């Protein structure tokens, strides 16, 4: 029966090509959505990893270093550094700020770090790390080049380095300055930090403080995005349904037009199961072709998005599998048509 189904695909190729085009766009959108939420996870992981901390020492009761702010003396880093298990400890300030660039305001994640301490940016792709107060390293998505100046909290900084892929909270770029500059911006120059980051895990911390592992710090970044990620996941499911609907509608219309063919085939001995298998094959071919086309379309769509899109590689494996499932579900729509048709219908006139 498969060759009859494939011949029908060829015979009605325009319709099926339109279905593949529509479905591949839907699949591509689903992939891009997966890429958006994927990027949020990846950027959170990168930001935490680049700080290079084994533990994040915070005031007890603080949700995390990225979403809550409770200051502590920066000098506490020395006390923590003396704790068993700690090789090194540095004060760090992490807070949300607004960058004013040529009159425009942009949100940024401000990292105030010791110039040679933990929390400093990775090696810039352009320029260098900050060496003194008034210098900043920014993520490329801030749109600032080396040598350009911008304001944060009324202070002017000169961009000395540009890093790539350093952002969090749905693509908000990171800006790295000296801890002294961050203290001046947010705490009137008070020698405070929002977190002490350590290399080595402290076996004990000062009273009133807790040591948070990096996995929890990453979860702290992602927590505010949970509803967004869930919305994206829901949108993805809706897109799968739309894809199934498109394929189902096309296969169903094809089945409607082939009722007489089904009757003839049944009259010459074809079973309902084999007819359904033929319809399922059509759906699967359309959906798998659509998934392949979607992978190509996705590469065209990604540059359009203002945010980073990181499609997990497993999505490219999972997509054809989901497409297979979508195709099979879609073909169920036409199942009744194939099963219900009476072979006696073949005797009818034109």
């Amino acid at each position, binding site marked *: *029966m498969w*060759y*009859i189904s494939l*011949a*029908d695909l*060829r*015979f*009605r190729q325009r319709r099926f090509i339109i279905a593949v085009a529509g479905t591949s766009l839907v699949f591509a959108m689903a992939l891009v959505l997966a890429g958006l939420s994927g990027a949020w996870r990846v950027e959170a992981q990168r930001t935490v990893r680049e700080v290079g901390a084994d533990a994040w020492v915070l005031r007890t009761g603080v949700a995390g270093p990225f979403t809550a702010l409770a200051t502590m003396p920066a000098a506490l880093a020395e006390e923590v550094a003396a704790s068993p298990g700690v090789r090194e400890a540095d004060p760090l300030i992490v807070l949300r700020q607004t960058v004013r660039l040529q009159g425009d305001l942009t949100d940024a994640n401000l990292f105030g770090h010791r110039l040679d301490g933990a929390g400093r940016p990775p090696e810039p792709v352009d320029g260098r790390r900050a060496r003194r107060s008034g210098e900043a390293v920014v993520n490329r998505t801030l749109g600032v080049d080396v040598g350009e100046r911008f304001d944060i909290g009324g202070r002017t900084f000169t961009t000395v380095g540009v890093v790539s892929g350093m952002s969090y909270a749905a693509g908000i770029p990171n800006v790295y300055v000296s801890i002294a500059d961050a203290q001046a911006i947010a705490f009137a120059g008070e020698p405070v930090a929002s977190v002490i980051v350590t290399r080595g895990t402290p076996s004990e911390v000062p009273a009133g403080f807790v040591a948070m592992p990096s996995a929890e710090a990453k979860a702290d970044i992602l927590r505010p995005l949970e509803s967004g990620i869930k919305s994206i996941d829901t949108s993805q499911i809706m897109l799968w349904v739309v894809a199934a609907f498109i394929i189902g509608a096309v296969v169903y219309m094809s089945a409607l037009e082939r009722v*007489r*063919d089904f*009757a*003839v*085939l*049944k*009259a*010459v*001995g*074809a*079973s309902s199961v*084999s007819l359904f298998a033929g319809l399922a094959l059509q759906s699967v071919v359309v959906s798998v072709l659509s998934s392949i086309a979607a992978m190509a379309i996705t590469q065209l769509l990604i540059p359009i998005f203002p945010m980073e899109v990181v499609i997990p590689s497993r999505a490219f494996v999972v997509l054809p599998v989901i497409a297979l499932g979508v195709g099979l579900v879609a073909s169920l729509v036409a199942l009744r048509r194939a099963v219900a048709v*009476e*072979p*006696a219908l*073949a*005797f*009818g*006139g*034109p």
Partner: protein
Amino acid sequence: MRVGVSDLTVEYSSGGYLVRPIDSLDFEVETGQLVLLLGPSGCGKTTLLSCLAGILSPTSGTIVAGETEVTALRGKQLSEYRRSTVGIVFQAFNLIPSLSALENVAAPLRVSGRTSVAHARAHELLERVGLTERVRHRPGQLSGGQQQRVAIARALAHDPPVILADEPTAHLDYVQVESVLQLIRELAAPGRVVIVATHDDRLTPLADHIVELGARPVMVETSPRRVELEPGQILFRQGDDSDLVYVVEAGEIEIFRVRADGSEELVNRIGPPGYFGELGPLLGTPRSASARAWNFTVLTGYSTADFQRLDKTAL
């Protein structure tokens, strides 16, 4: 292969009414014969073909093909009978439009899993029906006659001993009819029977045997007949052969139809000087409704010829 039909009756519901297109039909077809099922539209030709093909179960009666009692087959046995014993040439060809002539002919073999021989057999059959040059053409690229020949080749794919053809000339012009009829006639060879349903009288000289279905227009030569009915007495029933036209002289007649669920639907109640039942005898169709006396009723039954001579202005 011999085909026997015995006391065959088919009833089904149509538009909510019980219809009996075939009523106690008997006939036999011997091997090598070409049999015509002749009759007007709606007389049950296609219904009978469907029963012979094993795709419709009759209400009662038996069909025997060779040693097989077709009416006793069920499920897979019936599918196997359809695959191996019967080849069908459908009205309007019913070729699958997406397949080439070759693929259409090969389809029944592929469906039954005989893929290895399908291609060669399809070539052989298309050569036999004179379409060697058209094997790669799709139905839309073939003339009506060529399509019908492909349909015949498809029916022969399994070399079945019974060939059923439904109105094989219905969509052909006279040039195409000739080659198709010649082919059908040649098929009726020893070991095979060919049963053709048609309303085309021109085919009768080709047939070895003709089964007339449906009454022909009745030309009853009888003098007007007075009929008296007691209340509730039936004059004729739905499905009976039509003979006379009745004029109501006194009393009232109920005209009613029997629905598929057995209930009755009153169509009309006719009193003097009304008349009823004129179309059946004129067209040769069975009574489409039943007639029953509402009270004591007196009628006069006329032949169609006498009825046509009556002065209708008085009725």
